[in-house]
């Protein structure tokens, strides 16, 4: 999902995970009307990622990722198993005992992604997750999403205004302007001028 800042990307995402409720109309997620389901229940099937990492400073990378499953009362054995898998997925198995302050920005974002993925969501909502990352870390993050999508058949909804990120993905591109969808192209690319082309 692309669009310049202030075009409604974040608002649309918030409507999807029910941080905001629409004044009129319906929001359907996986065919379900979100007005008929409590926000917390809806979010249990989602993994939400932001530009800011929002990690717990006094917990290690392992504990930060595990926290996402613990708060949903997952048994400890299962939490440990899943956390190890996720640490492998995000490439931080060797840094699992480091605190966020001992990790780079890219690594911190991968911990935040790991925390969002630990409950095996069906839908991943990522709001500018590569906004603060260098190209190398951006690639890593995109690869994580791609791998998770391949392995778990999860949908990844990625909001960005970075042209290079969109073009590298080469996936469906939904373009927003003033809160309206102005184009929706599968396998599309976004030009510098903000135009989509179909592959």
């Amino acid at each position, binding site marked *: 999902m692309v669009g310049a800042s202030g075009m409604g990307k974040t608002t649309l995402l918030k409507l999807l995970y029910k941080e905001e*409720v629409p004044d009129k109309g319906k929001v359907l997620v996986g065919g379900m009307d979100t007005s008929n389901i409590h926000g917390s229940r809806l979010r249990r099937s989602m993994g939400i990622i932001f530009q800011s990492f929002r990690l717990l400073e006094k917990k290690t990378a392992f504990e930060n990722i595990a926290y996402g499953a613990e708060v949903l009362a*997952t048994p400890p054995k299962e939490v440990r198993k899943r956390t190890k898998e996720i640490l492998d997925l995000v490439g931080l198995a060797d840094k699992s005992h480091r605190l966020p302050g001992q990790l780079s920005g890219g690594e911190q974002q991968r911990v935040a992604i790991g925390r969002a993925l630990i409950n095996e969501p069906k839908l991943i909502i990522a709001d500018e997750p590569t906004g603060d990352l260098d190209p190398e870390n951006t690639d890593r993050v995109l690869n994580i999403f791609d791998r998770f999508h391949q392995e778990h058949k999860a949908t990844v909804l990625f909001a960005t205004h970075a042209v290079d990120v969109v073009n590298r993905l080469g996936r469906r591109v939904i373009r927003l302007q003033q809160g309206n969808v102005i184009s929706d192209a599968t396998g599309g690319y976004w030009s510098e001028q903000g135009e989509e082309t179909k592959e």
Partner: protein
Amino acid sequence: MNMWAIFYRLREAREGIARNTWASIATVVLLTLTLLMFGGFLWLNANLAQVASLLERQVQIRIFPAEGTPATTLAPLIESLSGIRSVEILAGESAYERLAPVFGRETLMNALPADAFSDSLSAELQDPDQADETVSQIRTLEGVGDVVWGQGFAQILYKISNGIQRGGIIFIIGFFIAAVLMSLTAMQLAVLNREVEIQIQHWVGVGPWGIRAQFLIEAFLLGLFSSILAGAVFLYLGEVIQGIIIALMPFMSSQLSSPMMVIGIVLVTGPVLGLLGGGLASQRAIAKSNK
């Protein structure tokens, strides 16, 4: 909430208490002080009620019949008054017998005529607060010579004890409010310190009660710890204070109520106060999760 949810939240509560060490200590100190005051007043009130009851039993009126009126004639008239619980006839000879050990039988026989002590009546009141009214009614009865009673002394004591009981309740309510506010402040601090945790829980789909539970458990633990401290103080000091009172006022030995009842109430009250503060503070935390 399943077993693991409780386990994780207990762990988080313990970490939260350790993280906000000073706020936690301040909360426990104030809650403990409140519980000590509360328990102290409860105990005092219970004992004052006993003293009041003792005084009530001792508010007796002595009625001397007018000359020529037998005490046996007056007794049913007095007993029929609404404020009277019971009437007893005291024979004149009994007064003579009571004075004899003090002044000496021979001295009394020489000093007083044989009929110096006439029969009298002792009336017990239903309600010491109504003493004035009842005494006035007795005075209007035909055949009543004189009426002697505590001249309001017992009544004054009774009113004082009532006042202390009422004041104590107001004092306790004040401390209760202060304790809840302190618990609320500590928990609000905990909520502020955990804004990121609350957000994470919110995003992964923890419901409002799940988020609230963490703060309720933390507040419950602070309240429980405070009540255990206060209970231990009562256990230790209760016997000591009781001993001092009995040494000063031996007649109270059978009247004092045990501090165990107070300890039981304090043990329940601490967690309740904590939960009240935690519940109010967590409103803010769950406001976002209610959509």
